[in-house]
């Protein structure tokens, strides 16, 4: 069925797999950075925990609930930014943001390229970027909960 294929552009196997078995999921006792992100429109709600050591992301986890896109995005984000310094993590977010809003390409994004299909669903961009916004707030030490509304 061709329409199934189109939907699979959004709900790629990798995305579904991560949404069901998210990596780095849970609270992080050693976190020295933490932020909360909330999408009031759909109720997605995540907390991102970061342990920064020697200027690099030593450990990063997330906890919370949301749709398949937001959860998979959070899961794959934690894998992608681990070991990076703040500048490189934010740069990756910027590339990712460009990808899901249809303004970028998949170069330099590695596995995150599976989110390219999101650009066809403008209402879902907030889902895909929620964890990223939250991570950035955690790294920047912003106290207030991030809201994508």
């Amino acid at each position, binding site marked *: 069925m061709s*329409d*199934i294929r*189109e*939907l*699979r552009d*959004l*709900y790629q196997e990798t995305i*579904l797999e991560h949404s*069901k078995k998210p990596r780095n999921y849970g609270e992080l006792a050693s976190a020295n950075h933490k932020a909360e992100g909330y999408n*009031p*429109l*759909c*109720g*997605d*709600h995540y907390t991102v925990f970061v342990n920064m050591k020697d200027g690099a992301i030593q450990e990063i986890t997330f906890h919370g*609930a*949301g*749709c*398949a*896109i937001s959860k998979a995005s959070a899961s794959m984000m934690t894998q992608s930014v681990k070991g990076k310094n703040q500048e490189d993590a934010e740069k990756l977010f910027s590339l990712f943001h460009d990808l899901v809003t249809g303004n970028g390409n998949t170069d330099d994004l590695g596995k995150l390229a599976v989110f390219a299909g999101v650009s066809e*669903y403008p*209402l*879902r961009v907030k*889902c895909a970027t929620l964890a990223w916004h939250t991570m950035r707030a955690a790294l920047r030490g912003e106290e207030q909960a991030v809201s994508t509304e």
Partner: protein
Amino acid sequence: MSTLAKTPDVVAEISERSNFDVEAVRRDFPVLHQQVHGKPLVYLDNAATTQKPLAVIEAISEYYRADNSNIHRGVHALSERATEAYERVRVAAQKLINASESKEIIFLRGTTEAINLVAQTYGRKNVGAGHEVLITAMEHHSNIVPWQMLCDEKGARLRVAPINDRGELLLDEFEKLLSPKTKLVCVAHVSNALGTVNPIKQIVRMAHAHNTPVLVDGAQAVARMKVDVQDLDCDFYAVSGHKLYAPTGIGFLYGKAKLLEAMPQWQGGGDMIASVTFEKTIYNCLPYKFEAGTPNIADTIGLGAAIQYLNRLGLDNIEQHEADLLRYATEQLDRIPGVSIVGRAKEKAGVLSFVIENIHPHDIGTILDSEGIAVRTGHHCAQPVMQRYGIPATARASFALYNTQAEVDALVRGIRKVQEVMS
């Protein structure tokens, strides 16, 4: 073909009804006849807003073509025609909800504005420190936030009557919360998130026993059932036009004349005055007292056409048609493993909220959309309801007079597809 068996008795019962021809009705709604993502549109987001029949679209356009003018001002022909048409709609609205006088109908933007008007006039005058405003746990944000704002301003307290797991108001608990401190009761006629129809008459009787007036949020009710404000004996009734097949941006507040007359002015401006000098302004009588400035004339004309359309089809017929659809949809969704309906009130209308095991409503919404099916997903502006059930959101199918059993079947196939894609 759907692999699901239809319930024979329901199918027979619906097809036997000849006084409501849904296919003919559908021809009155241009927007329904389109493809979305290559599939015929199945519009099941009617609790958010209803589509507009051609009669409404044409009435607005005809008004601008032939009669456009300001009302209650000029003595010229166009102004007279516009004024007469506008005031005719007031009478139509009065009759729609059986108010005793047309001056009890105040035209406003919609339910939200109507509730805010009452909060800022009646509320500010009558609710003070130590007083209470009583609402229910199933209210839409528009029947929560204006009261929170008022209570914050006045040092009053917002009390919330609880609901049971089926989504029904616990009347005993509600009654216990009434006291001499209760200055206003505010309750939805039909819950937009759960579909529950509240027992307004009983609620009003209980509240009046404490001399407490009752405001009813009628946004989801007026297009689904016959409403009789005199029989309900409620004190205020708030309506949105766009949920009853009329344009957005127009609705009305019903208030008992005695209460409206005693209420302070709301917005100041033209039309709401009888005479103005720099020393003193004499305010206009009802209903103009609450209609400052040039109103939304064209959309009021559209509202009039919508009411006429509803009257022509007959609200009894519409109520029956939607009840049949809701019953059929409930039976079909109950047969799908992993699907749970949220809101099982005995008295229910038009709204079917559901969740699917391990699938977030947002994903349900996107996949149904790919099948051409429009449902609402989210908290439906009723976050406390979601908190009550411990869920972040639901998917909600809501029915209107133009929906068909075949569209319910499409929804069922769509839900199967959601489960397939997300498996």
